[in-house]
């Protein structure tokens, strides 16, 4: 049995984004996003019977979210594989719906990490063997991967900077993006070094934000005002938690999650109109383009050069502006889904990719640890 096309997204929403100010809690943002997603889908709170969330704030996030919202789900999934969790939740929701365990799934997330004043919930839990070396979690782990990619493939800091510049060019077209001022390769190279070779402009934003998505059975399409966005395929994979245990720092297990997602969807990279790749750091986009098959291993640096993933380029990547320029509220995966659905609905205004029918959403969690890929499609892609 394939889950291809059996579940669909009927609503997506963001909470307030950026810097919401002191006093608001992550649950307040989840409340905002939930109100907006129910409005987007034309549903009532009482229709939700499946609840999906992950959090760095709440140990039992679906319990906290369910209590705050007044939702009493019969199916609850708080899988936490890092920022990719919410892409995993899409697959889990489709499976649960197909099994009859719930009908209307709400996936939601919120974070007030910026307004919390830098008191980040970092997820750092070093092994006793590694704590003495004071690697800065998580940036140093991604920096190690970048150093290896540069060594093996000649990838340059300029090429990594191209990823940040492309994200900024998209962000300029998104009124909700946090950073919309001009950015050049030279600006990235000249910015403060954090953990070499990654400077502060190679790193994602630290912002408040949240989101929500509604998933239900595709057969209910006639119940909704907006066109469905179908889950065509999805795949999960992980193979380490600590960067020292990653077999090859130039190859992520997106190679497996992507293959699983493409196989279920029955399409390949050449069919993807718009790709949302979890860009916590500039090296991420390079690695995922390679591992998902958009280019060969080691070719990612050249692939992103010359504005090829920027507006007007060969492949539309992270059209919201991404974690680098739009929003990165600690765990970013749900906002990838939000942007992909809006692109497939044709709601993206200036940054709309004309005729987008197939979107790839790729979530990353931990330190290149968890990789989750989903392929979404409009009616025309079914």
């Amino acid at each position, binding site marked *: 049995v394939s889950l291809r096309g059996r579940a669909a997204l009927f609503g997506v929403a963001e909470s307030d984004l950026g810097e919401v100010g002191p006093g608001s809690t992550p649950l307040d943002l989840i409340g905002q996003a939930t109100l907006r997603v129910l409005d987007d889908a034309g549903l009532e709170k009482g229709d939700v019977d499946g609840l999906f969330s992950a959090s760095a704030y709440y140990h039992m996030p679906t319990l906290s979210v369910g209590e705050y919202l007044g939702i009493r789900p019969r199916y609850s999934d708080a899988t936490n594989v890092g920022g990719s969790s919410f892409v995993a939740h899409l697959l889990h929701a489709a499976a649960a719906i197909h099994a009859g365990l719930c009908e209307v799934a709400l996936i939601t997330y919120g974070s007030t990490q910026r307004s919390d004043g830098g008191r980040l919930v970092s997820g750092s839990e070093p092994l006793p063997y*590694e704590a003495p070396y004071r690697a800065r979690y998580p940036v*140093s782990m991604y920096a*190690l991967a970048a150093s290896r990619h540069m060594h093996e493939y000649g990838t340059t800091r300029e090429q990594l900077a191209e990823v940040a510049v492309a994200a900024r060019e998209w962000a300029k077209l998104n009124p909700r993006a946090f950073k919309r001022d001009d950015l050049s390769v030279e600006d990235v190279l000249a910015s403060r*070094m954090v953990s*070499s070779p990654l400077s502060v402009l190679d790193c994602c934003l630290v912002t408040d934000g949240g989101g929500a998505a509604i998933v239900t059975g595709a057969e209910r399409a006639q119940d909704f005002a907006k066109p469905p966005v179908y889950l065509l395929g999805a795949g999960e994979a992980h193979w380490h938690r600590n960067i020292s245990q990653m077999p090859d720092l130039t190859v992520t297990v997106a190679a497996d999650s992507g293959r699983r997602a493409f196989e279920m969807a029955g399409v390949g990279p050449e069919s993807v109109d718009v790709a949302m790749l979890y860009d916590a750091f500039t090296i991420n986009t390079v690695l995922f383009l390679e591992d998902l098959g958009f280019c060969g291993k080691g070719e990612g640096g050249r692939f992103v050069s010359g504005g090829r993933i920027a507006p007007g380029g060969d492949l539309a990547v992270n059209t919201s502006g991404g974690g680098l320029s739009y929003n990165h509220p600690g765990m970013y995966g749900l906002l990838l889904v939000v942007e992909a659905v809006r692109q497939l609905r044709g709601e993206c205004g200036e940054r709309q990719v004309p005729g987008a029918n197939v979107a790839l959403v790729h979530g990353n969690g931990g330190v290149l640890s968890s990789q989750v890929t989903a392929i979404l499609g409009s009616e025309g892609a079914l």
Partner: protein
Amino acid sequence: MARADEAPAAVYRRLLESGTLGFQRCAGCGAAIFYPRVLCLVCGSTSLVWQTSAGRGTVYATTAVHHRDAEPHNVVLVDLEEGFRMMSRVEGVPAREVRVGMRVSFETRREDAGPVAVFVPEEG
């Protein structure tokens, strides 16, 4: 080398305190295992034998962690000749001058929390 009731982390630390870098070798499949565990992550065997590394390795990946008010410090992943990889730091050269592919050798340093495995550039 290890008592039956001794936890993997305790064996590692005891060896490090004596100036040696310990790792496990799987008696089932031969895999070199680090960090220490109670089973082989490759084949699942519980027949793990503690061995002492010669301490010779190659920098696999490197980063210099920068600070606003201090010199950067180095963090590396080192591939040991016995076939395992570990996080560490390279001393004796500025953090930014540590290179992937650099040959390094093991030493121990005593810190407040206990002995720490570090590496220095190989002589010659």
